[in-house]
């Protein structure tokens, strides 16, 4: 009986040396401490985290400080290359004299905002549908999963193009909703799967036996346990959303000038493709960096949050 009461108090441990020897002295670590440890051991994940934090911070801070500067044109500065005289334009100026760096940061802000908002919608719809289907089961589950099947069978990119083009071309809100409304199915399936297995676990049965109502069981007990795959899917979803937004803007359905987005910077650059290719490479490489950061982060989170899911190799 004595030996099962664990968590040795340091003071007591010093007194009775013989007892302490039998006790496992490795510090008790919570789930999140383990997660952090596993995450930090994943080198690419840390790189992804640093990259993502840097890009997000720059995208928030620089456009806020510079304000409207990203729209300012100047004919005298048109096609001006980068120079030491103007340290605020490390990439020089584009064909209508806009500061490329400031415009890039604004574009990054827009693209990240669209991606994060779209992923939020994906998570909210996906978790709600998945949780309801997985918890209630039976007919509700069946009906909701048929809905998921239908949405999954729609040609997704064409549907997004259709939604954006017909319901408000050039409007960031429409882009966000289009990506969100088409993309929630994966999250829903993941949460439903988790809920189906969690529903039968002992601790949920115990909570029910103690008289917890459905709301409490779902929100307090099941949802936190089901979130790991959703967090991973959401992180990877950011990468996808950024690319979809850029592609939409490239096809001139997305966000249109004078607002800046990574996609429409590329579209504008097309006109002067062969004269100033830097205009293609700068937003493109930024885009790749965002996607890489998000996917490294997602892979790392998957290994850290849920080691069973680890992709071997």
């Amino acid at each position: 009986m004595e030996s099962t009461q664990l968590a040795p108090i340091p003071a007591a441990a010093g007194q009775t040396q013989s007892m302490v020897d039998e006790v496992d002295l490795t510090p008790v670590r919570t789930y999140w401490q383990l997660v952090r440890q596993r995450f930090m051991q994943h080198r690419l994940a840390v790189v992804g985290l640093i990259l993502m934090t840097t890009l997000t911070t720059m995208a928030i801070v620089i456009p806020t400080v510079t304000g409207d500067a990203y729209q300012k044109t100047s004919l005298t500065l048109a096609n001006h290359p980068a120079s030491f005289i103007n340290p605020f334009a490390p990439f020089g100026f584009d064909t209508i004299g806009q500061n490329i760096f400031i415009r890039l940061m604004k574009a990054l802000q827009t693209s990240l905002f669209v991606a994060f908002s779209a992923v939020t919608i994906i998570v909210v719809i996906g978790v709600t549908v998945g949780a309801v289907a997985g918890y209630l089961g039976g007919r509700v589950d069946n009906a909701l999963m048929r809905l998921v099947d239908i949405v999954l069978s729609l040609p997704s990119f064409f549907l997004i193009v259709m939604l954006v083009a017909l319901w408000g071309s050039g409007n960031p809100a429409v882009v966000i909703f289009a990506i969100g409304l088409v993309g929630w199915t994966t999250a829903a399936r993941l949460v439903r799967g988790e809920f189906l297995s969690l529903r039968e676990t002992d601790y949920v049965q115990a909570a029910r036996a103690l008289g917890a109502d459905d709301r409490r069981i779902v929100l307090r007990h099941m949802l936190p346990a089901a979130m790991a795959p959703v967090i991973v899917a959401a992180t990877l979803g950011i990468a996808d959303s950024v690319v979809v937004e850029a592609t939409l803007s490239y096809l001139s359905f997305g966000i249109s000038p004078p607002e800046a987005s990574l996609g429409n910077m590329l579209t504008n650059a097309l006109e002067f493709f062969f004269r100033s290719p830097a205009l293609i490479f700068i937003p493109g490489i930024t885009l790749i960096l965002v996607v890489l950061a998000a996917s490294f982060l997602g892979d790392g989170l998957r290994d850290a949050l849920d080691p069973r899911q680890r992709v071997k190799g």
Partner: protein
Amino acid sequence: MAAYIFRRLLQSIPILIGIAIISFMIVHIAPGSPIDRFRSGRVSPETINNLIRLYGLDQPLLPIWVENGMSLLVSLFLMGLAGVLAWFALRGMRRGRTGLSVYATGLIALLLMGGSLYLIITGFREWQLLVTWPGQLINWMLAFLQVWRPDAWGYSFTDGQPVITKIAERVPYTLELMGTSLVLTVIIAIPVGILGAVRQYSLSDKIIMVLATIGYAMPTFWLGLVLKYIFAFQLDVFPLFGRHEFGDDSIVDLVWHMVLPVMTLTIVSVAGWSRYMRSSMLEVMRQDYVRTAKAKGLQTSRVLYKHALRNALIPIVTLLGLTIPSLLVGAAVTEAVFSWPGLGGLGVTSVIERDYPLVLAFVMVGGTMVILGNLLADVLYAFVDPRIKY
């Protein structure tokens, strides 16, 4: 297996109806109208009204069914009968009966279902309700099934051509692009993936993984632009865009024009497939039977290619099925970058011009391809892996 395919085909009917309803509603409830671009001071209100009537935009979205109640009831009864028969057939198949009676029942069920659908369609045509471009949801869905009629999918709003013809004439262009790219992807990605797995953590593996990760992160259209800049502008070896030089129909010219778009598509998919192949191969190489084969003293090459590779290819075969839908509609962006006259470009244009019949046809064709692709993937999976039973 037959029962499984049969059940999946039955299940896909409600899914297709769902797709039809959702896409129809998205298109028709959307703000704005296809005739908005004609609304200027110079176009008379009568012309506008005529256009509205011509396009069928004045019809209610849901039809008034009351007049044709009889035909409908009969058809629905037949449908119900077919459903019951199908259920019996399925139950028989699931219980492992393989006799003639089970398949006959299934066949009769399918025939009845087709017959009742046909009754509904012809019934509506006799009551003059089936218009060429149905603005009504149900009429549109019914008309859509009559693929053998050239006007089944309606006429394009922009040039008045039948939608079926417009889509059909673009299919080969997209297929030549996507087909070539798919073949190249398989040829390149599988050896590359195997190399990465066999020499795990070696220099070549690291290089492959870095390249694959970057290739995976690149947006397709951007890669297209970069290739265009390098090969069409700086080096000036390949043409910038298009499928043919004007007045030159030779194969050489076609291949010359195909290089850059195919390269774009292939690089992107090789990046994904080789990662997939590598992890699949690693997974298999870790298994006991491979160790046993090695322990028996078999040659390494024999272990790898005779024992490991066969199982590692199973997920790739599935991937092949899932790629089928993108064969037709997946290349929209690449086609836009290289002005390739394929389906993807047609789809994007149809959306811009609010060519409703064409847009809806695209969604339906795309949806059907996705469903068939998924079915094919599952069937192939069971076919190559006898452990899988449905």
